[in-house]
């Protein structure tokens, strides 16, 4: 019987297999940032262990960094960033600090450098590591104990998850994006729907996505409960990689591409579960609640909790509406927002900024609008194209690279009760600042919303 892509990549990385034990998996790339690593380095020091493969490890500063130029004013944040600098220096790990041209959100810089390649195993102490699966590898988030384990051994003991196929048939209608697609998928299968699975996104609509769009989709796999999501590599993948600083060159490139082409699910392979989605039925999507599964088409209304048959979902919807300050039956396009955030590892890439700029071109924003490039390189490219001038002319703020308003660890936060339209990935209570209310949207919807001050689809802009 044939094998799925995930099974092929997994098997390729088994260092040791023994009856009744998890597989010992080799890790090709370990990404590090300041938040989940300090205690891991402490652990190494206490045990007197070195980092086994500093040459397969790379670090950046992202979660705590301010996006307005200047030093970190919060002493606790600063201490954490300084700890990373000290640790990476001591253990010989490459670091891209604030201000460096290679700095950025950890999941943006890996692909940008060409370090993320098909068929690899990639981990990071961050749940959105699933982003890197867009290149056809297995990439997943780990906790600090596992960060220490990978630093010490370059391996992880793990049981292979089951496999799920999400088949997206047909083509996305004009104006419907990768973000809308993944939000719709999560709303359909639920925040626990992918649990215990590696999800392979397949089908015509997935093939048609750019690498950026594929990363947006894979990024949010974790929000459906899946540890990892992946997409088979193809010409789109190879074209994206070619010529990047760490991509193979010359003969090695040809050899690599030959191997990468074998990285696809065999026709006779069987998935443990298959979910089908009809792309043609989708439209711009937005969340109304406090988990990413609580979403609906932007053209619909805030649902009534009684609509949910399951008592747990019902009470969760009740709580969510209360927290969000929303009334059932309100049209989503009537919901007024205070702040718009375009950025994060979900939608902080050049393509996302271009999409937002296209809508903001020649228009004025009515809300506080933060445009935050996912990395310094994205920032420089955007500026080379003049996007920053479009944003500024529209009245939006053009910021330095970092996680920014994706989570409340840096100065970019919502005030209690404030409402945002955000291109990030989590609408959890307080995620963007205590008491803040988050609606997850695509960059296009975010930009249109900034113009009107209410949740708005670009097609509805006059």
């Amino acid at each position, binding site marked *: 019987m044939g094998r799925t892509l995930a099974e092929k990549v997994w098997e390729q990385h088994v260092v040791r297999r023994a009856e009744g034990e998890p597989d010992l998996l080799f890790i090709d790339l370990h990404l590090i940032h300041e938040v989940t690593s*300090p205690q891991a380095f402490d652990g190494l020091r206490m045990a007197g262990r070195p980092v086994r493969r500093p040459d397969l490890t790379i670090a950046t500063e992202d979660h705590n960094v301010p996006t307005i130029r200047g030093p970190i004013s919060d002493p606790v944040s600063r201490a954490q960033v300084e700890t990373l600098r000290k640790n990476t220096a001591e253990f010989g790990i490459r670091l891209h600090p604030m201000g460096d041209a290679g700095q950025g959100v950890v999941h943006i810089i890996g692909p940008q450098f060409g370090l993320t390649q098909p068929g690899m195993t990639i981990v990071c102490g*961050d*749940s959105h590591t699933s982003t890197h699966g867009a290149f056809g590898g297995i990439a997943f988030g780990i*906790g600090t104990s596992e960060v220490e384990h990978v630093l*010490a051994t370059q391996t992880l003991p793990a049981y292979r998850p089951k496999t799920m196929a999400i088949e997206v048939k047909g083509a996305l209608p004009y104006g419907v994006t990768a973000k809308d697609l993944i939000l719709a998928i999560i709303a359909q299968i639920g925040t626990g729907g992918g*649990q215990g699975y590696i999800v392979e996104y397949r089908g015509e609509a997935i093939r048609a996505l750019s690498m950026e769009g594929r990363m947006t989709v894979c990024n949010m796999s974790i929000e459906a409960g899946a540890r990892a999501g992946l997409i088979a590599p193809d010409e789109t993948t190879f074209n994206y990689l070619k010529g990047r600083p760490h991509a193979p060159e010359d003969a090695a490139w040809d*050899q690599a591409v030959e191997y990468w082409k074998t990285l696809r699910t065999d026709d006779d392979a069987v998935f443990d579960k298959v979910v089908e989605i009809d792309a043609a039925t989708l439209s711009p999507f937005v969340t109304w609640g406090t988990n990413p599964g609580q979403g609906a088409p932007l053209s619909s209304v805030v649902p009534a909790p009684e609509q949910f048959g399951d008592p747990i979902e019902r009470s969760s919807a009740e709580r969510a509406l209360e927290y969000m300050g929303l009334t059932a039956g309100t049209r989503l396009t009537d919901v007024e927002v205070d702040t718009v955030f375009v950025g994060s590892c979900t939608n902080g890439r050049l393509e996302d900024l271009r999409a937002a700029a296209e809508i903001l071109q020649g228009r004025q924003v009515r809300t506080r609008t933060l445009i935050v490039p996912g990395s310094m390189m994205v920032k420089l490219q955007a500026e080379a194209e003049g996007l920053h001038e479009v944003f500024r002319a529209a009245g939006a703020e053009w910021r330095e690279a970092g996680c920014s308003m994706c989570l409340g660890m840096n100065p970019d936060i919502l005030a209690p009760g404030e409402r945002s339209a955000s291109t990030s990935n989590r609408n959890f209570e*307080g995620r963007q600042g205590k008491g803040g209310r988050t609606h997850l949207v695509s960059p296009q919807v975010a930009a249109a919303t900034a113009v009107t001050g209410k949740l708005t689809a670009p097609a509805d802009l006059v």
Partner: protein
Amino acid sequence: MDAFVTHTGTAVPLRRSNVDTDQIIPAVWLKQVSRTGFEKGLFAAWREDPSFVLNDPAYSGASILVSGPDFGTGSSREHAVWALQQYGFRAVIAARFGDIFRNNSTKMGLLPVILSPEAVETLQKAIEADPATEITVDLSERQVRAVGEAWSFEIDDYTRWRLLEGLDDIGLTLRHADAITAYESERQPWLPKTA
């Protein structure tokens, strides 16, 4: 890591689903570089509400958390596990857990116990009716016992053994250093290096 064999204690009912790790420990608490002091940040936002169950003196001293489904979804922050442990919890019982949280827990010796929604409901009712109700979480027998009933739970043999013995994963893996070296010598030549 702390070994876990069997534990008996009182329990707190947390009647919420999708308790994500941002709720368990909000992001501002993640700026610490040490491994201690996280108990103060446990459910920090919810604890500001005087009616939140952890603020009910009847449940002080409880060491088991009985939660709605999908406990520990979201971020990979192990700080969530540290916060629960440092607050005094030894086990969390729920019908379903976020994968990374569950994994992190077993690395630290906080036992995540998966029971059926019905069993969770029975336990929650019992501890709501009488907060002094004791629950026994018995890893060696893979069983939860309370109010005269017993429920079996599943956990793979390897993880169970590691928890029972309190074994450090890294030490176990380093016993296979030769296998890692052998694997490294066969990796594809084009694979990227950061340095």
